[in-house]
């Protein structure tokens, strides 16, 4: 017999040991698609909510460059506000998402007050003679400060801001590097900080440090990938644009020479016209397929749209010398997609099929229900097929094996299908042909009578 459990159990168990509770709150948040700021807020929340460690207030410093900067301060401003907040937080059944929502509002509301007061606080992050709070980070030690007013190591400006005599400094470390610091106090209840509190807060600090570190790394990686992709794209586009421009320029120069014979004039003009068309096509594809935002998908009848593409002049010209057949099941359902993008996707699949198939080959379009909520539209050809290494690249921007290709058609297809909750599938055998399947969400047509 087996029992299965959710990896991330979402509910708060009020009677679980608080160590466990805290760990669960924080680790759950790392699996949520929250931003770095939100997740940091979760950590502060865990440190201050009654079911977590239960400090009154938590303050966060982050390391930027070689300085520690005050970022965020969570907590009530007065005993009165504390009463209100804690009442909300002890509502039975409240989860960390709700608490987070609540605290997000709190942080933005007290921007001018608590967090606002932090903004001016900046300390060197690795200095010998650092004062508290930076002292804890520089020494990489947890610090419990009591009777702060008479402690010469405490920075006076900081003391003014925090305004309490007892507080705890937790350095945030990741692989022995400082990434920030958290400062905790019980400004409202005035309860003393216990060794158990310190242990737990320390644990929290470890998790927070590693979380901040991995997020920063991840961001850097994404930036690098983006830069590399942009470089690749710029290079490709330069090439695709430069060739036709050189041809246009060169043949125009010839036209301007006085001794050019009549037949050569015609020929040059034809070349120039073709190259300009090519430029136009490149610009069209860039404009269409790299569209930043796609239109919202809607339910519509794909029948007329497919018919329109199949009978368009471009497709009619391209299909000359081929067998092109289309079979759609009767009573088509409505599919979910942006209709304009849909037509562009179909057109490109057909283009690709003809490009891959020698004259005399067959291109077939099929439309049929896969099940109650899925509709398949497929384009099959009897062309050269796709080799395995190429298969992995098909949907990458600018992957093309064509002299004049832009390699954006399938990238666009994938984006469109992702946007409407659909799927693309490819089957192909080198030398035999390919089958591209689009699977859309669908529903029965609404009867209008």
């Amino acid at each position, binding site marked *: 017999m087996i029992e299965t459990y959710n990896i991330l159990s979402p509910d708060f168990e009020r009677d679980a040991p608080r160590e466990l509770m805290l760990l669960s709150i924080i680790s759950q948040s790392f699996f949520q698609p929250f931003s770095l700021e939100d997740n940091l807020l979760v950590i502060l929340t865990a440190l201050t909510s009654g079911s977590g460690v239960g400090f009154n207030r938590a303050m966060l410093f982050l390391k930027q460059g070689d300085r520690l900067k005050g970022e965020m301060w969570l907590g009530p401003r007065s005993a009165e506000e504390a009463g209100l907040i804690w009442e909300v937080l002890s509502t039975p059944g409240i989860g960390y998402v709700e608490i987070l929502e609540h605290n997000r509002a709190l942080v933005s509301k007290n921007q001018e007050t608590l967090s606002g007061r932090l903004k001016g606080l900046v300390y060197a992050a690795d200095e010998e003679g650092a004062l508290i709070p930076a002292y804890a980070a520089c020494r990489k030690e947890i610090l419990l400060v009591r009777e702060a007013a008479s402690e010469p190591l405490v920075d006076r400006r900081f003391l003014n801001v925090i305004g309490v005599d007892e507080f705890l400094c937790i350095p945030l470390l990741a692989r022995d590097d400082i990434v920030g610091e958290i400062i905790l106090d019980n400004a409202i209840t005035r309860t003393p900080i216990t060794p158990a509190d310190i242990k737990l807060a320390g644990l929290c600090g470890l998790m927070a440090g590693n979380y901040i570190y991995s997020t920063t790394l991840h961001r850097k990686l994404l930036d690098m990938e983006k830069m590399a992709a942009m470089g690749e794209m710029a290079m490709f586009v330069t090439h695709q644009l430069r060739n036709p421009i050189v041809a246009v320029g*060169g043949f125009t120069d010839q036209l301007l020479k006085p001794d050019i014979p009549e037949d050569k004039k015609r020929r040059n003009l034809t070349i120039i016209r*073709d190259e300009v068309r090519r430029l136009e096509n490149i610009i069209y594809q860039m404009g269409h397929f790299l569209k930043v935002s796609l239109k919202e998908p809607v339910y519509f009848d794909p029948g007329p749209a497919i018919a329109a593409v199949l009978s368009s002049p471009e497709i009619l010209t391209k299909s000359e010398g081929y067998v092109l057949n289309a079979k759609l099941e009767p009573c088509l359902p409505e599919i979910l997609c942006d209709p304009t993008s849909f037509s562009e996707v179909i057109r490109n699949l057909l283009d690709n099929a003809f490009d891959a198939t020698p004259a005399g080959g067959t291109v077939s379009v099929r439309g049929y229900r896969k099940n109650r909520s899925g509709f398949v539209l497929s384009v099959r050809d009897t062309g050269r097929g796709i080799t395995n290494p190429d298969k992995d690249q098909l949907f990458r921007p600018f992957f093309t094996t064509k002299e004049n290709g832009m390699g954006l058609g399938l990238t666009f297809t994938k984006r469109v299908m992702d946007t409407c909750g659909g799927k693309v599938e490819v089957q192909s055998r080198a030398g035999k042909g390919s089958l591209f399947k689009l699977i859309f969400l669908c529903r029965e047509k609404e009867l209008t009578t």
Partner: protein
Amino acid sequence: MKKKILLVEDEKALCLLYEEELSREGYAVTAVTNAEVALAELGTTAFDLIVTDIRMPGKNGIELITQIMGLRKDIPIIINSAYQSYKEDFMTWAADAYVVKSASLDELKTKIKQLLGD
């Protein structure tokens, strides 16, 4: 005797343009559209200079240069490419000149003259 130039360029229109323009300058131009044919031509004719593109289907221009170097033929080579960035590729240093394709063919013509010592 006319000096012989081997031109490797996969774009049909450009191939035609370069062939005509260089012929006008008084060279005997053999224009081919890929590296394989270029190597075959090199086996039968003694060229004075080679002009090649880099990005081509099949063998690219850099592979072509490597092979020509292997043949120990001491022919000056000009790379004529739409890419600026290949200039930094160390293999393109093996070429005698690098020209970025431009609507004006002046730079290409000048480089050819220099290398042929005209």
